[in-house]
């Protein structure tokens, strides 16, 4: 029969909605309450040294809202005001300096969009498919438009001495999570971010200032940035020796594996986004990114990798930032093995998980950029699987 939503006057079409100022800083409408960060409790012992996952299955476009962008803390997210904020630059410099937040606001400002991916994104999948949903398998990632000041400008203010070949960056929180960054990178595109997506950084993202290290693993993006030490060697901190090193089959480990290699994932359909509309037009969409440059192509396969079709890259394609792809297909309603494969402008082609395991074994935790396989059943349900 006729749709009463159309034939009958609905309350929202007759009475008032909320007045202005009902929510001076708004939250998403309640119908989207399922779109939130989620954690996997068995992963870590304590919620203050833990990680959660961006609901990438439910987002579109490329920009991640701060409020649902994944968090990783090592001693909890701290409240640090602009008034209490200090940034020190010391070590192999001509003039050790202290800056206030207001000082940072007087440096030339730059805007850049960059993805931040935890090196352990997909780490639980090294041994085999484990978790149902790209939020959990690929959701340790976010992508924001940052505004801030170049690290190189701040370093120049202090005057880096010739033997200053590394910087060591650390945060003001209790973990003070420090990482060493080679001077070439520090002088290239590293940003001290003061704003994200047009607003101040959220507390959980390092308010009032965090580091943005484009293309490199998220652990280096130090939040609540408080000190930059200039050194003639790497500090070899806990976060670059005990953690964030890559175990290889011979029992040795790669260190300084900073770059996040090219990767992609189909975000819809996926286990948290089953197909409910049956056969016919189907939008397949996902995200692709590369820490080595810009995405040049994304291929999609629906038959487990026998045939591949280039997807559309939608919107602007920016280097070291998330790229949205769409693949519009006519689904015949039969079972599919959906996969995506990213190719970046260096010519690197996203490998299969098996190809990675053949080189790195399965004792690795970090840098799993293998191809994800979704098994789409005839009823539209989607599973995380591996195939041979």
């Amino acid at each position: 029969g006729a749709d009463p939503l159309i034939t009958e006057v609905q309350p929202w079409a007759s009475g008032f909605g909320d007045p202005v100022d009902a929510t001076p800083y708004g939250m998403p409408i309640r119908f989207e309450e399922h779109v939130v960060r989620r954690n996997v409790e068995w992963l870590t012992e304590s919620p203050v040294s833990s990680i959660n996952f961006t609901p990438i299955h439910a987002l579109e476009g490329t920009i991640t809202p701060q409020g649902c962008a994944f968090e990783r803390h090592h001693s909890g997210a701290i409240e640090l005001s602009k008034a209490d904020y200090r940034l020190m630059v010391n070590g192999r410099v001509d003039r050790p300096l202290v800056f206030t937040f207001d000082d940072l606001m007087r440096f030339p400002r730059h805007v850049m969009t960059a993805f931040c991916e935890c090196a352990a994104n997909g780490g639980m999948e090294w041994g085999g498919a484990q978790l149902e949903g790209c939020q959990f398998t690929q959701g340790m990632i976010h992508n924001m438009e940052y505004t801030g000041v170049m690290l190189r400008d701040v370093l120049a203010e202090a005057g880096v001495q010739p033997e200053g070949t590394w910087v060591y960056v650390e945060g003001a929180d209790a973990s003070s999570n420090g990482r060493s960054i080679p001077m070439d990178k520090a002088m290239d595109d590293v940003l001290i971010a003061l704003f994200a997506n047009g607003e101040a950084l959220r507390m959980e993202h390092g308010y009032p200032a965090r580091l943005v290290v484009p293309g490199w693993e998220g652990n280096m993006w130090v939040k609540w940035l408080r000190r930059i030490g200039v050194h003639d060697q790497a500090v070899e901190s806990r976060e670059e020796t005990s953690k964030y090193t890559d175990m290889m089959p011979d029992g040795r480990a790669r260190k300084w594996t900073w770059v996040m290699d090219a990767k992609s994932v189909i975000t819809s359909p996926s286990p948290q986004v089953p197909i409910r509309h049956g056969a016919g037009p189907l939008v397949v969409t996902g995200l692709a990114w590369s820490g080595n440059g810009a995405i040049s192509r994304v291929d999609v396969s629906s038959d487990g990798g026998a045939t591949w079709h280039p997807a559309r890259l939608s919107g602007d394609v920016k280097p070291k930032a998330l790229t949205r792809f769409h693949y519009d297909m006519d689904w015949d309603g039969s079972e599919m093995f959906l996969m995506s494969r990213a190719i970046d402008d260096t010519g690197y082609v996203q490998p299969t998980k098996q190809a990675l395991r053949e080189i790195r074994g399965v004792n690795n935790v970090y840098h799993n950029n293998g191809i994800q396989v979704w098994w789409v059943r005839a009823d539209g349900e989607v599973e995380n699987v591996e195939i041979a």
Partner: protein
Amino acid sequence: QPLGLGREALPEEVEAWDVAVLPDGTGLRPGSGSVEDGDEIFYEQCASCHGDFAEGRDSWPALSGGMGTLTDPRPVKTIGSYWPHLSTVHDYIHRSMPFGGAQTLTQDETYAITAFLLYSNGMVEDDFVLTHENFTEIVMPNADGFYPDDRPETEYPIFSAEPCMQDCRDTAPEVTRRAVDLGVTPMGEDGRPAGTIPATFDVAQGPEAIEEPEDAPEVTAGEIAPEAEPEAAAPDPALVADGERAFRKCAACHQVGEGARNGTGPHLNGVFGAEVAHVEGFRYSPVFQQLQDDGVVWDHDALSAFLESPRGFAQGTRMSFAGIRNADERDAIIAYLQSLEP
């Protein structure tokens, strides 16, 4: 050309913040600590998470053992088996530990704990004393176990071949692993993976089916819940909210709320008003059994005294927490604990 921004960092400011210790010993401050002292400090400050012998508890990291396991299916990565530099141990303990009480250890305490960890890994004898002078003589067992990222040489050439587009498989795909078999995904109340996009129509009837608006089901008298008894002296909601925020520092070790389990510390549901050591199945420090025998109840004053100075109130507690000096904060946490369902 400098802009003239910022001011000079004073030497005492640099000394306060620049505590980094580098592999060659750069940054080490004068000091010393013995294995014997380290054992005692470790038991007080570290053992509640890392175990009495640094063997690890629950999912907290083991700091000793694991030698020779790095090629095993489940390698045990500890300070002894994996860490390449002793400087990292000293640096990390001093800057980040104990968890929840960072930057409270003195230099000598840090040397002592570091010495104890060398001992617990079988690298020194029990009479060893670590100092800034002998520090760089220690060579870690896995010092040569690391090499710089070689992906550009070893992987990028392999992964840069022109990809196949057609007839790339000889056989039909066969499922070899299914995540559902493991059952470790967080699930929603509907039995689906948490966060699943809800349907906008009645799935059983398909997208074409338009649901008639239903009247609210009638509630029969028998189903109406009796009005809840007013709680005696319920805590102020604003104070409870403050307490919930302040409780974050406790949440590392203590679970609360529905489904709370014992972790490093006991769960705290119903702790307010209960006798000390009331959670069955939790391995309390002996001092709590003593307090229970003495008839101590976790009323406001007892909780406040304990939170102010855990080791003052319960000497020998393994709760590695410095205490809360601010009385308002203690009151808020107590109000929050009071608000929890038993």
